[in-house]
């Protein structure tokens, strides 16, 4: 399934909890799908597809937003908590810290939906837990 197929299917999908999805395609050198959950105050999730993986990303903060005196503490906390966060991991892309989930490229829609919802819930927890490290 490519990003267009995901956009169509996600837009028509309704979860058992009543969540629906707003999808917007961002065109460029790489196809990206921006997904927001209706009925859930969260973060936009960006979905992109590589050769073997579907990667769902939430952008957390940039290097500039981190309090310099607490940066090491923040990085340690990220390492310590990463394994506890279900289906998501931390990463850094350029100067941006992200929370992401990677799925097999052959994953069905329900797995992507699960990832998008859980990534959002995880991101709310992560940002709440780490906001003291940010300016």
């Amino acid at each position: 399934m490519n990003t267009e197929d995901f956009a169509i299917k996600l837009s028509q999908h309704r979860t058992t909890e009543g969540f629906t999805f707003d999808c917007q395609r961002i065109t460029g050198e790489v196809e990206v799908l921006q997904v927001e959950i209706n009925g859930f105050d969260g973060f936009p999730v960006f979905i992109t597809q590589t050769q073997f993986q579907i990667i769902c990303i939430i952008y957390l903060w940039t290097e500039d937003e981190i309090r310099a005196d607490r940066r090491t503490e923040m990085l340690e906390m990220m390492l310590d908590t990463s394994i506890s966060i279900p289906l998501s991991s931390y990463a850094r892309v350029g100067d941006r810290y992200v929370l992401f989930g990677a799925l097999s490229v052959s994953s069905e829609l329900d797995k992507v939906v699960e990832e998008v919802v859980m990534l959002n819930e995880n991101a709310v927890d992560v940002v709440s837990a780490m906001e003291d490290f940010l300016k």
Partner: protein
Amino acid sequence: MSGDKKRAGMNILDKIIQVIRDDSRALSEAVMDSTGNKIYEKQIEVAKVNLSSAKHAISDALAKESQCSRKVKLMKSQVDEHEQRIIKALSQNDEILAFDLATEMVELEQDLAAEAGILKSHELHLGHLTRQMENAERSLKELERQVAMVQTTADIQKATEVITKNFNQADSKMLSAKRSLERIRRKQQSLDEQYEVDDAMVNERKPVLTEKHQNEVSEQVTEDAADVLKRIIDKE
């Protein structure tokens, strides 16, 4: 995991980290040539074609080996048969026949030894080809995994460029999770305040509503009872 693989794994990650730190665009260049063709994909395609011909060679060698193995089996049974015939001739004191058969058996045994030698060399060749194919298969998988790592890193960087460019044009605050969290909290707080106001209003109205409701219920019951009586009287 073998030591070689460990080293290879560290190597590709080292390279990725080095390129990320030096020049992120070089990542794309590492997997794409100037015309945008995927360099490693070509190499992988060539490796796959080579693997496929190696598999053909193995199936040919397997056919020869099994043909040779059947021949050796047949010759062994001929030798066994000759031996039985010699034993029989000797038991019948027919030394001349026994000697003739023994002479034939020498030739048979020589042929069997030669054929067994050929079979051994087929087996060795087949083993060698199989190990070569397995090694090639492993190398191909490793190459594909490494290319996927580099390609994924490059793709995610490109996707981030596309996203940030898009948000710089619209609303860059959208990409700050802290601001989003503040927005979520503000919204949640105003919802909580609204709920408190609603609860307070409901509580204020509660006694009035209960009294009114009770009156309405008893009026309704009286009306219904009158209907029931009327229905029974009408029936009679």
